[in-house]
């Protein structure tokens, strides 16, 4: 993937509960190439925070409050959230 010809996108990444604890951060801003996917965002997170290596390969993710797949694209201004296994009730 190249960012030579297209403007990069900016997204907000949120981590919760155990994920926030192990990575040591609750939120961060990421700059990704246009047409980046959820998986690319995760890869970028792992680069910036080595502790994120401990996260599952395919964690539950939400984009703008709806669950998404790892292959889904992220867009400029998106809020992407990494959700540990849900435990409500």
């Amino acid at each position, binding site marked *: 993937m190249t960012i030579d010809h297209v403007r990069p996108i900016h997204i907000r990444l*949120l981590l*919760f*509960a*155990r994920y926030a*604890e192990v990575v040591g951060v609750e939120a961060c801003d990421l700059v990704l190439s246009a047409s980046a996917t959820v998986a690319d965002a995760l890869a970028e997170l792992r680069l910036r925070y080595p502790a994120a290596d401990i996260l*599952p390969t*395919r*964690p*539950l993710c*939400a984009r703008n*409050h*709806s*669950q998404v797949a790892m292959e889904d694209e992220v867009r400029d201004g998106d809020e992407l*959230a990494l*959700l*540990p*296994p*849900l*435990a*409500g*009730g």
Partner: protein
Amino acid sequence: MTFLTEAAIDAARLAAMVAGPGRGAQVSFVGTVRNHQAGRQVRELHYTAYGPMAEAQCVAIVAEAENRWPVSVALQHRVGTLTIGDAAVVVVVTGDHREEAFAACRFVIEEVKHRVPIWKRERYADGTEAWVDPTAALDPAETGSP
């Protein structure tokens, strides 16, 4: 009224919100904090949530239930620190008849557990604590699915 609340849930108030002269059935589910989990003595639970998504998911779940059955649904979930016996989640469903009220109530609590981003940290009697992972016992390698 928001679906997430830091204050104690008033189940009677929720029931009043969905009462009606034609509603011959009222079914409620109250999830309370129990004092044991997997053989360990639990002292209290701390709930956290991804607030905006949790609210959006609760709106969607209630709408789905009310579209699928002729019922009215009231729902609240606690966040913050709860002690043994506290109500963590309350679902109240009213319908003209019991069949749809039972079905919708069951649907709502199951969907809440599957879709609403809420997490709990158990604090044990021995002073230790841990995040609750309902999927851990099923498949430790894949924690992506609720």
